[in-house]
């Protein structure tokens, strides 16, 4: 991935209540447009995959590893699906995000660069380097 000039981005689609109040015809159009958009990006080689996510799910947190039902239904913040993009740069990823057919109805698209390496691993290595530098200074 990092050996090419292409960059990877994840589009996270937020909000799963945008379909409320739409007529069946409007809804049909948005869904058709969305699928056609996905198909075009795939054909252009700019989208390498994507999935819708189910409204149900669980959230695990805490030292006790508690399992709770996730409040994913009827939420403006919940992630409803994603596209994995391979594009030239962030600008192109943003331009693609702006084409999302759900935007007009309240969908929000988060554009996130995919990292080669975990930032915490990087920070851990930086700490070690600092300590090493301190020890040898």
């Amino acid at each position, binding site marked *: 991935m990092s050996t090419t000039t292409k960059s990877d981005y994840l589009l996270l689609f937020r909000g799963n209540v945008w379909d409320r109040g739409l007529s069946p015809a409007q809804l049909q159009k948005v869904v058709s447009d969305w699928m056609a958009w*996905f198909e075009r990006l795939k054909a252009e080689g700019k989208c390498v995959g994507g999935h819708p996510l189910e409204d149900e799910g669980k959230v695990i947190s805490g030292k006790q590893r508690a*399992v709770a039902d996730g409040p994913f239904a009827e939420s403006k913040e919940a*992630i409803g699906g994603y596209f994995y993009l391979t594009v030239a740069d962030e600008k192109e990823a943003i331009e693609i995000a702006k084409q999302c057919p759900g*935007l007009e109805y309240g969908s929000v698209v*988060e554009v996130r660069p995919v*990292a080669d390496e975990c930032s*915490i691993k990087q920070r851990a290595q930086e*700490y070690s380097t600092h300590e090493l530098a301190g020890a040898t200074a």
Partner: protein
Amino acid sequence: MLLFRGPHWDRGLSTDELQQVMDKVMAWFEGLNERGKIKGAQPLGGQGRVISGTDGRFVVDGPFTETKEAVGGYLVLQADSPNEAVEIARSMPTLRYGISVEVRPILAECPIFQRHPELLRRVTDPAAEQLWVAVAA
């Protein structure tokens, strides 16, 4: 899909602690990988944008780095059951340091069809739907 939320769990840990936790995380990941449970996984960069409004007229820098809700990475699991996915999520070593893991089933088809059974599943180009399903499969 597992979504890891809260990318700043490492604050306040010493270098030694952090190294130990990261070793556990890598071992956890490798163990799952060897068992064929991982279909894909990436950390996400802290930078990013949020696109909203008709035609994506609003583009703002995402406040991803400081919030506990921010998604710091994801993992696509090949689990035998929802229970197995939850159990795998519960075994994530960094849970005790304050992250949460969202467990969401990946769908072959957009849940909008569940909410609106009157919608025609056929899209303008029949190949689009096949592609959608093929990617989800």
